[in-house]
């Protein structure tokens, strides 16, 4: 197996050693060369609900087409996989309405990860919360734990999976923040789809970089987060709620 051993693991260990040899000094987390999940980053979305309209579901359609979860199934419609959905909300006090897409909120403290008995539900170093379906046993604890109904269970065999999006019977799935595209330096498909409609309501970027467009806008508008009372430190922010 020497021919497949990865030098980046050694450099990671070397980096860790450096970290422990210099206590008290705050260092950036060591980054294995070639790894896309960069520890210094925190990928997130800022959704401007003032630009999002009730009738539009371009992001949902694009997500379904990209990842294949909206392909026809034989099961009950209420059990069909759904990675992102449009929700219309109304403030009962003021009567103000808003429409917004709700998907995995990529929490910094994800309850789905806390409850997973196998470690399949995990958070990458760059903040993207994923299901490792290689070790998912389909218990669906994470679906119960998620306050956002962001995860789905696959009830039947899947064929014709899209490139970069493996999906399989008996496992839980959810928004991956288009991790394959992000690793390749591209934007999540919902961001592109929303921009394609001319609305441009979704902004993607690194929340840890104070100079990124998303960080500047977060500072400027102080957007809301869903179920902020749970203190999950979600990566998806909503402007205008």
């Amino acid at each position, binding site marked *: *197996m020497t*021919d*497949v051993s*990865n030098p*980046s693991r050694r450099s990671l260990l070397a980096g860790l050693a450096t970290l422990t040899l210099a206590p008290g000094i705050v260092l950036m987390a060591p980054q*294995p060369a*070639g*790894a*896309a*999940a960069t520890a210094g980053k925190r990928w997130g979305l800022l959704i401007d609900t003032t630009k999002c309209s009730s009738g539009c579901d371009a992001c949902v359609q694009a997500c379904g087409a990209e990842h294949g979860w909206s392909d026809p199934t034989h099961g009950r419609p209420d059990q069909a996989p759904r990675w992102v959905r449009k929700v219309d909300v109304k403030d009962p006090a003021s009567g103000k309405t808003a429409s917004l897409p709700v998907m995995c909120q990529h929490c910094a403290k994800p309850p789905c990860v806390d409850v997973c008995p196998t470690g399949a539900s*995990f958070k*990458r*170093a*760059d903040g993207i919360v*994923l299901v*490792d*379906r*290689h070790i998912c046993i389909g218990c669906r604890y994470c679906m119960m734990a998620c306050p956002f109904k962001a995860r789905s269970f696959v009830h039947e*065999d*899947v*064929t*014709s*999976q*899209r*490139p*970069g999006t*493996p*999906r*399989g*019977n008996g*496992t839980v799935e959810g928004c991956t923040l288009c*991790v*394959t595209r992000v*690793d*390749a330096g591209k934007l999540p498909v919902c961001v592109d789809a929303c921009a394609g409609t001319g609305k441009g309501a979704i902004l993607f970027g690194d929340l840890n970089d104070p100079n990124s467009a998303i960080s500047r806008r977060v500072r400027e508008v102080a957007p809301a987060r869903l179920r902020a009372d749970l203190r999950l430190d979600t990566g998806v922010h909503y402007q205008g709620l």
Partner: protein
Amino acid sequence: MVGVRTPVLAALLLMAFALVFATDFVATGAMAEGTAKWPGQCVADSATMRRNHFEMLLHQRDDTMRLGERPSDRSLGACLDCHAVKGADGHAVTAADSRHFCRTCHDSAAVRIDCFSCHNSAPGRGK
């Protein structure tokens, strides 16, 4: 004592024979030779691949899933791209077809391929 030892020895001999034949099968078995798009350009030589491809895939699986490392040559997609077997319609066959590269050996060895319960078994990586 002899009565106990004889069946044990026989069993051991049988196991040894089985091992020899298994080794022969993996080393020289009826593989889909020459199906690679670029013969000799695999990430390792054929003998290593036949013995260790599953460990390589397992290793890469975790690095890709957990660390986001997506090397162009060691992914499952890269294997499928190179080892695609074209059907009569000119399109690459899926694992549902017994001519699929992985199945040519896995069928003989009676080892189920779990990969394709989630991954598409036909080439076509989107990057």
